[in-house]
C-alpha cells in the first residue's frame, strides 16, 4: 500500500514538474512580448515559482529515489528510475545555477530601469528553460515507463 502510494506520488510530482515546464515552453515564449509585458509575466513567474518549483523538484527527486529503492530487485526498473532521478537533478542544477541567478536580476528590473542587453538575458534564460524542460520530460517518461514495467 505504501509502496503504491509512493509510486503514484512519484508519477504525479514528475508529471506536475514536466507539465509546468512544458506549458511555459510551448505556451508562453517571451520572445514576442514587449519589455513591459515580459517584465510583468516573468516577475509574476518568479514570485510564484522561485521557491515552489525547486521545492517540488527536490521532493520529486526524493520520491523517485525511494521508488528506485523499492524496485531494487528489478534491475531495468531500477535503472530507469535512477536515470529519471539524474534527469531531475540536472533540471534542478540548471535551475539553481542558470535560471535563478537570472531571476535574481530580472526581479529588480522596472520598465524605467533595465539593461540594454535585456533580450540577451531573456534569451539565455529561455535556452536554460528549454534544457530543463527536456530533462524533466525525459524523467517523466522514464517514471511512467517504469510503472509499465513493474
Amino acid at each position, binding site marked *: 500500500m505504501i509502496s*503504491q502510494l509512493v*509510486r*503514484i506520488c512519484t*508519477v*504525479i510530482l*514528475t*508529471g*506536475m*514538474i*514536466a*507539465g*509546468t*515546464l*512544458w*506549458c*511555459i515552453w*510551448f*505556451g*508562453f*515564449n517571451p520572445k*514576442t*512580448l*514587449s519589455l*513591459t*509585458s515580459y517584465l*510583468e*509575466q516573468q516577475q*509574476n*513567474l518568479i514570485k*510564484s*515559482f522561485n521557491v*515552489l518549483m525547486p521545492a517540488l523538484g527536490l521532493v520529486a527527486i526524493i520520491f523517485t529515489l525511494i521508488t528506485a529503492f523499492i524496485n531494487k530487485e528489478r534491475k531495468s526498473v531500477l535503472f530507469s528510475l535512477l536515470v529519471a532521478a539524474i534527469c531531475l537533478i540536472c533540471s534542478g542544477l540548471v535551475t539553481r545555477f542558470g535560471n535563478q541567478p537570472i531571476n535574481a536580476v530580472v526581479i529588480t528590473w522596472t520598465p524605467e530601469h533595465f539593461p540594454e542587453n535585456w533580450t540577451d538575458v531573456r534569451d539565455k534564460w529561455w535556452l536554460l528553460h528549454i534544457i530543463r524542460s527536456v530533462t524533466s520530460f525525459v524523467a*517523466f*517518461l522514464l517514471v*511512467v*515507463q517504469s*510503472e*509499465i514495467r*513493474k
Partner: protein
Amino acid sequence: MFIETENNEIALMTKGQKIVRNVISWWAVIGFGLWVGGTLFSMLVIVPLWSSSPPESVRSFFLGTNFNNTVLNFFGPQWMVVRAAPLFIYTALSWRNKKKWWLIISSMSMIIIIIFTLVYIYPINEALMTQAGGTYSRDEVCIMVYDWVFADRVRFFIGTIGYLCLLRAFQINED
C-alpha cells in the same frame, strides 16, 4: 500473453497488442500529466496577470501580448484531441479487465472537461480573450472574469480526479 478478465475468463492477447496497449497507456498518462502541470502553472502565474484588476488588466494583457495565439500551442483543440484520444483508446482496450471502472471514470472526466470547455469556457474566451473585453461594460467584464476563473478551477478539479483514476488504473497489473 494471457490476461484475466472481469469474469475470470482467459483472453488471449498477442505480444503486439500488449505493446500497443502499453504505448497507448503511456501516452495517456503523459498527456494527462502534462495537462495537470500546465493548468496548475496557468492558474498560479498567467490567470492572475489578467484577472487581478478587471477590466483594465484584461485589456492590457490580451491586447498587449500574443497570448491568444501562443496559448493554443499547449491548450489548443488539437492538443485536446491528442490528450483525449489515447485515454479513450486505453479505456476501450481495457474494457474486459479489472481496471475498466477506473478508466471509465477517467474518460468521463475528460469528456466532461471537453464539453464544459467547448460549451461554457470557449464562449467566454471569445469575449474576454479574443476581444479583450470588447465593448462589454466594466461589470460585465468583471462577471466574465469571475465566471472564467471559477470554471477553470472546476475544470481542474474534475481533471485531477480523472488523472488520479487513470493513475490508479495504470497501477493495476492486468497480466
